[in-house]
Structure formats: C-alpha cells, structure tokens
C-alpha cells in the first residue's frame, strides 16, 4: 500500500516536473526567432475572439446574480448605495479573473489537448518535424502565448459584462441611471484592485496553454489517448488555476496590503 502511494507521489512529482520543464522551455522558446506571430495571432483569434460570447454571457449572468445577492445583504443595513461598488469589487478582484480562467480552461484547454493529441497520434507532429518545422514552438508556444494574451483581455470583458449585468438587475429595482451606477461601481476601486487581479490571469493563461499542450504532446494509444488528454487538460488546468490563485492572491496582498 505504502509502496503504491509512494509510486503515485513519485509519478505526480514526475509529472509536475515534466510540465514545469515544458512550460519553462516554452517561455524560453518564445523569445527565439522565428516568433511565429501569424500563428500566435491565429490562436488569439481562436482562443480570444471566439470565447467572447461565452465570456460576455457568463459575465452578464454573474453580474445579475451578484447584484441580487449584494442587494439582499446590504439593504439590511440601509446601504443600497454601496451595491454597485460592492459588486464591482467582487467582480474585479476575484470573480471575473477566476471565472474567466475556468471558462477558458474548459473551452480552450480541452480543444488544445484534443487538437494536439490528435496530431500526435496521427503523426502530424512528426511530419512537421520532418519538414524542419519546430513543432514545439509552432504548436505549443504559440498556443501558450495566445492564452496568456487573451485571458487578461477576456477577464476585462467579463468585468464590464458583469457590471452591465449588475446595472440591469439594479435598475429594474431602483431605476438608477447607468452613469450613476457606473460611477458608483468605480467609486471604491483602486489600481491595486484592478491591475494585479487582471494581470494574474496571464499566469492562468500560461497554465492552461502549458498543461493542455503538454498533455497533447504526450498523448499515446490512439483516439482513446486523445479523449483522455482532452479531459485531463480541463481537469488539471482548472485545479491548477484554483490552486495557483491562492498563491497569487496571497502575493497580491503581500505587495498591496490595502
């Protein structure tokens, strides 16, 4: 039993090490020519632009729900005027970045894992290597960079979508004007609330791209392996995002204690 647990721990640590080496190599390769900007742009389009409907809809719904909950809590204290600010702080600081990261890991992580896994089992990656194309840089690095670029922008879109959703819920109750709601929403926000929380999603994007690409590049045993790579990409990326978020929040509070 102990021996089996030891083997699992050793396998986990080995997997962590391999993923870390894979991510480190991607960061290092990102600065080396050719930069493959066309492929990066294409991946940004696929990852970012095509995710906007999902992000906007989710953000809007989250904003409505947050507004309803915030109102139920704050109106007990007669602090309805604080609803926009409370909602904005909740969205910008945590809900927006984390939700955007999880949504992207579900939509993009699975896609990258499945796509690269299929290329692996069909030996398309070997074919690229045979044509002197750096498959790692062309397939993995571009997707990792695209995730790192798209996720902060998607997080910002989600923040605004959530604020608009909160306004719709609030104006249905109180008839408050959009600009007053918008002004109150930002009344208690500081740069330390917005910038670190948004930029931490770069790390989330790196995790999503790295885990999904690694699992795709390491796919084995045909189509079954492709399916496993896709599923494991979503699960592992989501777990890692949630786990690393704890560390990142702690780091942000360390540098911005207010």
């Amino acid at each position, binding site marked *: 039993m102990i021996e089996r647990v030891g083997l699992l721990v050793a396998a986990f640590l080995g997997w962590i090490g391999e993923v870390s080496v894979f991510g480190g190599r991607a960061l290092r390769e990102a600065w080396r020519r050719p930069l493959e900007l066309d492929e990066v742009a294409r991946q*940004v*389009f696929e990852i970012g632009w095509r995710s906007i409907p999902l992000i906007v809809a989710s953000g809007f719904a989250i904003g409505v729900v947050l507004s309803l909950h915030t109102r139920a809590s704050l109106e007990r204290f007669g602090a309805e005027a604080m609803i926009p600010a409370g909602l904005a702080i909740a969205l910008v600081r945590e809900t927006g970045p984390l939700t955007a990261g999880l949504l992207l890991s579900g939509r993009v992580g699975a896609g990258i894992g499945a796509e690269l896994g299929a290329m692996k089992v069909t030996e398309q990656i070997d074919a690229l290597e045979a044509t002197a194309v750096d498959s790692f840089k062309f397939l993995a690095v571009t997707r990792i960079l695209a995730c790192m670029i798209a996720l902060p*922008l998607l997080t910002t*879109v989600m923040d*605004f979508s959530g604020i608009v959703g909160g306004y719709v819920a609030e104006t249905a109750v109180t008839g408050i004007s959009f600009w007053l709601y918008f002004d109150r929403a930002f009344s208690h*926000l500081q740069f330390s609330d917005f910038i670190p929380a948004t930029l931490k999603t770069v790390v989330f994007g790196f995790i999503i791209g790295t885990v999904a690409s690694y699992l795709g590049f390491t796919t084995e045993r045909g189509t079954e392996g492709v399916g496993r790579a896709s599923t494991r990409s979503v699960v592992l990326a989501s777990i890692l995002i949630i786990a690393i978020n704890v560390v990142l929040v702690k780091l942000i509070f360390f540098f911005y204690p207010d």
Partner: protein
Amino acid sequence: MPSARAIGTGAFILIGLLLFAVALFMIGERRMLFAKKFEVYAEFSRLSGLQQGAPVRVAGMMAGEVKDIQVPPGPDSKFRVRLQIRDDLHPLVRTDSVATIQTEGLVGGMFVQVGAGTNQAPPAPAESIIGSREPYSFADLLQQASETVTKISEAVTDLKEGMDTALGQVSDTVQDADRLIKDVGADVKQITASGTKVAADTQVIVEGLRAGRGTLGKLINDDTLYLRAQHIAEQAEEIAKNVREATVEFKDLGREGKEAIATFRSEQGPIVGAAADVRQTLKLAREALENLADNTEALKRNWFFRGFFRDRGFYDLNRISPADYRQGALETKTRKALRIWLAADQLFELSTRAAEPALSPAGAATVESAMAGFLQYKPGAILIVEGYATSGFSNDQYLASKRRAQVVRDYLVQKFDLESRFVAAMPLSAEAMGRSPAGDRWDGIALTLYVEKTALRAATADGSKNR
C-alpha cells in the same frame, strides 16, 4: 484585404485593451490621478480606523485621498495625516478649516471631512497643518448616549426630590408668612393708627399756624412775650430734638427692617429667625411711632400750641374715654349734641351680629339715611358713633358695642369721605347716653353730632328723630 480571422483578432485585442484602459481611467479619475493637487496635514490623537487611501472631502465634495499617515513618536504626540486635495478646491481650504474623521453611514468606511473655512482667513498654504477635531466612533457615541441617559435619569430623580423638598419648604414658608402676617397685623394697624394720629395733629398745628391762632400768633404781635422767647426756644428745641431722635430711631428701624427682610430672603437665614426679626422690628417701629405720637401729644399740650386744640375742645377723639365722654367731654356751652338712635336688628346681619358685626344692605341704607340729616353740618362738626350692646356680661357688652360702633364709623368715613379726625367710635356698653327709645338701655348704635349752636340755628332741623 486582411482575412476575417485577422480582423477578429485585432478587434478582440482592441476591445480588450480599450476596456482595460477605461477601467484604468475610471479608477484614476476617482483617485484624482489626472488633476492638479496640493497637500496639507492634519493631526489626530486617534484615527478610528482611518487608512491610507481613504477619501478626503472638502465641504462634502469628493476632493482627494489620504496619502500618508505618520505614526507619532510618543503617546503625547499625534498621528500626522497627509491629505491630498484637488487644487480647484484650494480656495475653500482656509487656515481656519477643521478636519474631522467621519464614517460613511453606519457600515461605511472612514473618510476625512475638511470643513470650508471663512473668508476672513487666508487659504491654507500647501504643506501646512490645518486644524482638526478628534473623531467620534459609533461606540463612543453609544457610550456617551448611555452616560447622558444615566445623567438625565439621575437629574430627574434629583429634581423630583428637590421639587418635593422645595414644595415642602414653600408650604412651610407660606404657613410661616401667614402666621407672621397674623402676628404683625395688630402691630401694623397700631402703627397706621399712630401715624394717622401724628399726621392729623401735625395738620391741626400747621393749620393753626397758618390762621395766626394760638400763642405763636400772639407772639408775633405781643412784645411782652418776646422776653420769654429764649425760654420758648429752649423748649421748642428740646421738643424738636425729641422729634429728631424719634425720626432717627425710626430710620434705624427702617434699616433694620431692610436687613430683616434681606435675612428673610437669604438662603442661609432661617425663616423663623427672620420672622422673629420682622416681628421685633415692627414692634420697635410701633414703639417708635408711639413715642413720636407721645411727643406730638406733648407738643399739643405745650402752652405754645395748646391754643389750637383748646379751640376745638379736644386733643384727640380717640383718646377720650367712655367715662369722660359720658361726663360731657365734648359738650360746651356753644355746642349741642344731635343724636339718632338706630337699633341693631335694623343694621347688622343676624349671623354676625355678636362676634364680627357686619352691616346688612338694609342697615347700610338706614345708616346713610340717618346720616343724611347731619351732612349739612359737616365738615367741622364732631361725629361720634356710640355703640351699645345689651347681651352678655359687661365685658361682652363693651366689646360688642365697640365693634358695632367701629363698623359703622368706618363705613361712614369711607362712604361720605369724612375727615377721620372728626369722627370717632365710642363704646358705651348697654347704658344709653340720655334717653333712648328703649329707655335707659339701648341695643344698637347712636349717631351723635356735636354741632355749634349758631350753625344749628341757621340750619333747618330734621325733625322726627332729633332731640
């Protein structure tokens, strides 16, 4: 022509960056990052949770934020708070502006409120220290409210006890004052009577002097009396000295009276003692006035002035005793008495006839009717209201006759505005002066007018009841 994929990528990046920039601008606008600012300091002993970055309001308007909070080096020093304020609000921040730490509602955060100063004070220079007021936390307010309620409760309890005590003291004071008034009433009446008597005698003397009667009048024309002037002057001086002494004594008594009243009003002075002082003072005042009256009485009997009184046949009607009156003290060869008999049952209320006789309306009308016949001889004629009573022993008769006579006498003086010095009440018990309609005794009063015979002859007598 770029591909749709490239356009989508560009749009995505632009939209994302634009929203990111908007968020930065909105936050920066709230933080006054793009406005010109100045800084001032305010010092507080305690911050009540104020933090760096807390909003600053000038006259209620969003104006900036707390940039820094410097911790004091010791307990006797204060926190120094650096306030960053929009420059366009600088004209409102004066050297007499006061900064306070306040709470946004019950659950809001802390912020610094800077009150607008006055026009008289110059604008607060940048980097200067403006005035401050220590903050009140909600817990402080509750604590203070609790203490205030406790104090109010104690005050109400004390006030209630004080009111009870005060009401008791007022009640006691009223009772004391009532007793005092009753006690001094007789003295006051006596003082008034003495004062009236002195005034009346003085008036007689002055009138006589004006008329040139008496020894003083003769002194003016008779040279033989001149030689005795020295002796007269000495006597007069002695009398005047007595009067002066009496006056000084009266003044002293007046001062004592003021002091007694001050003691009476003072918080420390026991009211019983004050009342005793007042009684003592009034007693002394009464004695003084009696002395003064005695002096004037002596003055009247002095040969220098007695001529005035001899002319009218009496010195003081009130000093004529019933015995002297019966002996004919007021009757002279030239003077005749006119008497009208009035029965008691026609004059007084039945219920009060004995103890405190009061004129009934019918009795008043009867007295007025009887007096009507005498009015033609007044003024100058002497009116004596003789009182008679037949019930009880001789002392009861005397008192009842005195009261009856006094009541009728006072009524006549007031009703017909008579000179009181020529009207007197004479208690004669039961035995009638002369012959009454009932014989030797009479129960009631008799109005007796002493009138000069010359005047009597000139007038027409009112027949039926006159004798």
